[in-house]
């Protein structure tokens, strides 16, 4: 402990230099922890968008559903999808099961027809678990979207919600009558007249140009699908158990493929990798700055205390104990810097979140979002440990220099 006390006193002796070094450590901590909070917001937003965008926590699908395209409607489907959904709803870990049918075809206003990608959903369950309302609200603000509402729960209702681009292509607005055309499971051409219930803005232009949503009843009539469903989106009671429940449900449902949302959300994975690369590089640069700053401080401290080290060595201090002394100085710098950095992070985070800063729309998205820096203790811990390690490494060279001093020369040092 005497070495620790000596280290602390030495840092306090050079207050200005110590303060400057601490500022570098604090700045490093602040930058990395705020970046971590921002990344957490982004990942949270993307995972919410993926889960509530239709994937659910888990998706049950036929094996091989993700390989190749369908030659005709519901070729790759769960033949007894509705019954399977009913069975899954009895599972204690499952909050709800949302059956979905995916199909494609042509949408016509008479003189003009446009190809579409359709999803059929349960009009009652879907708004409870999925992010339908936001897309509809945004769609209502576009031309022809006034009066947009969600699909009717009436099984006899034949309604459609169009992507804004698709509506524009057909000059359709809320209340317009259109015709959906596709092939049945048996390959026969079929058509259903539908009324536009609303327009939806899904945030991506490519989706808005092609995407439409109908009720399962409408799709059943169009595709003659009976009980068949393309996918079952499973909402879990405990989302944090997704990986574990995926393995368990896969065991319970032979002949199906159960996939967690993060395996299916390729955009989420790509953004995550990109962010890790960007912030990893930024972290590397910051750690390097901290390393150089603390190494400089400790080296200057060693050069100023050559005679003192000579005296300590003459008194019997082992060379490795001088190394430990410098490591203690580094440890105090790291600990104090991280503690102050954490305080600064929490204050700045609170300030930034209170400002409700609007961020620009990300690439490919049609609207921005509000900045919210998340509170992420594990990131703070990781940054503190990383900085501590960096400073300990930076203390090695000055420490070795001190340990290698020849005592008689150190005692003569002026």
């Amino acid at each position, binding site marked *: 402990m005497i070495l620790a006390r000596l280290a602390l006193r030495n840092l306090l002796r050079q207050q200005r230099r110590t303060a400057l070094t601490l500022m570098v450590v604090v700045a490093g901590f602040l930058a990395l922890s705020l970046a971590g909070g921002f990344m957490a917001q982004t990942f949270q937003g993307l995972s919410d968008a993926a889960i509530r965008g239709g994937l659910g926590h888990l998706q049950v699908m036929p094996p091989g559903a993700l390989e190749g395209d369908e030659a005709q409607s519901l070729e790759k489907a769960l033949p007894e999808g509705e019954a399977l959904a009913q069975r899954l709803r009895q599972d204690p870990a499952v909050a709800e099961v949302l059956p979905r049918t995916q199909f494609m075809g042509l949408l016509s206003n008479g003189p003009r027809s446009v190809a579409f990608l359709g999803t059929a959903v349960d009009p009652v369950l879907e708004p409870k678990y999925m992010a339908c309302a936001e897309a509809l609200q945004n769609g209502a603000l576009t031309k022809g979207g006034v009066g947009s509402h969600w699909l009717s729960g009436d099984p006899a209702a034949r309604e459609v919600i169009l992507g804004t681009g698709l509506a524009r292509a057909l000059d359709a607005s809320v209340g317009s009558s259109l015709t959906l055309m596709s092939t049945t499971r048996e390959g026969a051409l079929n058509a259903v007249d539908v009324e536009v219930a609303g327009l939806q803005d899904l945030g991506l232009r490519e989706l808005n140009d092609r995407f439409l949503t109908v009720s399962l009843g409408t799709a059943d009539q169009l595709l003659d699908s009976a009980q068949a469903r393309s996918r079952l989106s499973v909402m879990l009671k405990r989302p944090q158990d997704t990986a574990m429940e995926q393995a368990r449900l896969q065991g319970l449902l032979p002949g199906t493929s159960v996939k967690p949302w993060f395996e299916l959300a390729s955009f989420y994975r790509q953004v995550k990798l990109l962010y890790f690369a960007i912030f990893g590089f930024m972290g590397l640069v910051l750690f390097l700055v901290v390393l150089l700053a603390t190494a400089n401080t400790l080296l200057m401290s060693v050069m100023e205390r050559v005679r003192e080290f000579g*005296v300590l060595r003459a008194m019997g201090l082992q060379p490795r104990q001088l190394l430990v002394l410098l490591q203690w100085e580094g440890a105090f710098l790291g600990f104090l810097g991280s503690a102050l950095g954490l305080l600064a992070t929490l204050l700045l985070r609170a300030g930034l979140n209170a400002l409700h800063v609007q961020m620009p729309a990300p690439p490919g998205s049609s609207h921005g979002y509000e900045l919210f820096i998340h509170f992420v203790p594990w990131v703070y811990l990781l940054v503190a440990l990383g900085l501590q390690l960096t400073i300990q490494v930076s203390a090695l060279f000055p420490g070795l220099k001190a340990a290698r001093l020849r005592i008689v020369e150190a005692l003569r040092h002026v």
Partner: protein
Amino acid sequence: MLEFRAITRAYELGGERAGVFGVSLTVPKGCLAVLAGPSGSGKTTLLQLAGLLDTPDEGEVRLAGELVSSLPEKARCDLRLRRLGFVFQAFNLVPVLSALENVMLPLQLQGRPEAEARERAEAALARVGLADRRHHHPGQLSGGQQQRTAIARALAPEPLLVLADEPTASLDHAHGGPLLDLMAELAQERGATFLVASHDPSVIARAHTVFRLLDGKLVEVG
């Protein structure tokens, strides 16, 4: 107590060969011995060899009968910590520690509990007349007080041998004399051996044994 046997330690100084050459001498236990001689006569070199701060080119250094000059560095560190004390010309107290903490330092480095170290350090400071200055830092002490603190620091671990390099050179006569009297008293009182390098006549006058050196050779023992 301390024995040099045919010690040679040579080095280049300003293009000339300096050091000590074939010196043999014995310092008896409990005495105040002085290495006397002009600058460059080899006093400090012998003191550094006695303090295991340097190794001889030839010859042996024995402490309490044990050959210590060829020990590995770790063992030398341990010997310095437990059996040797140092007093330097420039005092060399650790500036960030108080007088009391400076005296406690070698005791704590020995691994003694803080309470014991404090008790012994307070006693050592009281013995050199600095009980009321124990919480002062070196910058707040006069030269004489700093040197007395250094003596307390050297003596607190109860070493066999205290090595002092020109301990009065940074002090005026009024402070140097009492300091030497104190060292002589302590040598007698504690049975500790003092080996002092000095060319100060007042130091030589108080010595029990004087080893006179000239150009790195022992020329007189008195």
